[in-house]
């Protein structure tokens, strides 16, 4: 290979790296720390905007809140000035602890030069009920055991080891759940759901999304109503569940080994069901419209 060709190839490969302009920015962070006493009946109510919300648990009877408001800009003075646009609230009213970040109406008039965001790190007792409303951001929640309600838009949620009553509403966001156990209600629109090792009772309504659900013998009931969505249901032993499946204008892929009974099987409507031999079993009822459903044996969770 001639040397000139090697050099020109090297420059050609290097070119995209050279054109990636890096800029150094100042990150000004206002960190607010506050601790509240906890007793049974108190609920934490979070309303985040462009916020990363991290919720963890501990054995103390306290709720610790660390709220960081962040402004990024090449000039420190500009970042410091823009930081003041973001208001916050961390107060207790009766049995509720309200945590909120927002931009006030008067500040909404202009556009900031900096990139603004907020980050909550909340540590609380595991039985403390939580209500989270988040627009644009990220939520990482683990080890809660009582009541969790989420209403989010454009937010990615990671839930780990959550028990109790769960009510999740998500729009334009993704939900990744590991070890969710309890009475769970999920209403999703244009959101993808990845649920791993689910336990308890699940009621899911999904519209425009990809749903990957991994279920084992800890599942009690699953009712899923999916519209214009692709659903993948995995289990190490799909034969332990009872199935009641309805697919309207949808593709249905089922394990041949189970011997599903088909009531209707036309291009527009397929109804299939299966009952296991054992006396006690979990029920899986799925209705799908204009999408696809695939039930598959899979020994490991994704």
């Amino acid at each position, binding site marked *: 290979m001639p040397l000139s060709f090697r050099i020109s190839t090297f420059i050609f490969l290097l070119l995209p790296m050279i054109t990636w*302009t890096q800029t150094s920015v100042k990150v000004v962070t206002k960190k607010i720390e506050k601790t509240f006493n906890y007793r049974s009946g108190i609920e934490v109510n979070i309303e985040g905007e462009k916020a990363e919300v991290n919720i963890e648990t501990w054995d103390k009877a306290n709720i610790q809140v660390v709220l960081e408001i962040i402004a990024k800009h090449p000039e420190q003075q500009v970042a410091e000035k*823009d930081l003041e646009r973001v208001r916050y609230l961390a107060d207790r009213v009766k049995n509720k602890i309200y945590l909120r970040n927002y931009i006030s109406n008067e500040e909404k008039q202009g556009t900031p030069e900096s990139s603004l965001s907020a980050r909550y790190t909340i540590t609380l007792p595991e039985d403390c009920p939580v209500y989270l409303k988040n627009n644009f951001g990220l939520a990482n929640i683990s080890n809660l055991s009582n009541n969790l309600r989420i209403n989010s838009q454009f937010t990615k949620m990671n839930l780990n080891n959550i028990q109790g009553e769960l009510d999740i509403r998500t729009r334009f966001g993704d939900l990744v759940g590991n070890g969710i156990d309890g009475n769970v209600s999920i209403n999703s629109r244009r959101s993808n759901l990845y649920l791993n090792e689910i336990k308890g009772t699940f009621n899911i309504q999904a519209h425009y999304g990809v749903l990957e659900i991994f279920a084992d013998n800890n599942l009690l009931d699953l009712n899923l109503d999916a519209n214009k969505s692709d659903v993948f249901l995995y289990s190490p032993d799909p034969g332990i569940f009872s199935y009641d499946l309805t697919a309207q204008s949808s593709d249905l892929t089922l394990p041949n080994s189970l011997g599903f009974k088909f009531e209707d099987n036309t291009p527009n409507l397929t109804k299939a069901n299966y009952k296991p031999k054992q006396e006690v079993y979990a029920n899986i009822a799925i209705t799908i419209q204009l999408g696809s459903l695939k039930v598959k044996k899979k020994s490991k969770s994704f």
Partner: protein
Amino acid sequence: MEKNKEILQKTIRSLPSFEAPPQVWDAIQLELDSDQKLQHAIQSLPTYEAPALVWEQIEKNLEPKIISMPLVDGSRKNDKYKWLAVAATVAILLSAGLWFLTTLETQENIQIVTTEETIYEQLLIEDWEEDESIIQEVAQLFAQSKVAQSSLHYSDLLEEYQELETAKETIEDMMKQYGKATDFIRQISKIELERSTLVKQMATLI
């Protein structure tokens, strides 16, 4: 039993009647309103529970103490000690409440820290408006097309288009408030990807 019942009733009926001037009713209403406001304000007052330590301290102070006292004029001395105990309890309660309010509930620790990080400006380029005119043109043609109108999915597709338009506007509005950031641009990219698929679908039905 009234002996002259009829006379009494007649006299009562003949008594002159007066109507209160409107400002009197206004004044009463104002007073009632302020009562309601007060009640509402009381309801919205925060409630605080004293920590276990406070109750333990009170308990200690309330424990009966053996005090040797002379027999003469004993009742007056007892009264004096009783009042002292009450005063001490009130003082402890007040100071405990104050300590509770100032240390565990309301103390905010605020710090401002500055660090540095690197960003890539290429990731912040807003280029999605380049194809906006053609997207809108296709959507408009689809909305007016007789062929499209006869399609089963006509209203679903229009509704979907509208939903994606609104979502895009919401993100752009949020970006105006919180500044340009890669996560906003990533979300707009996802919306644009869906819009592209949708517009292509619309184009086949025109």
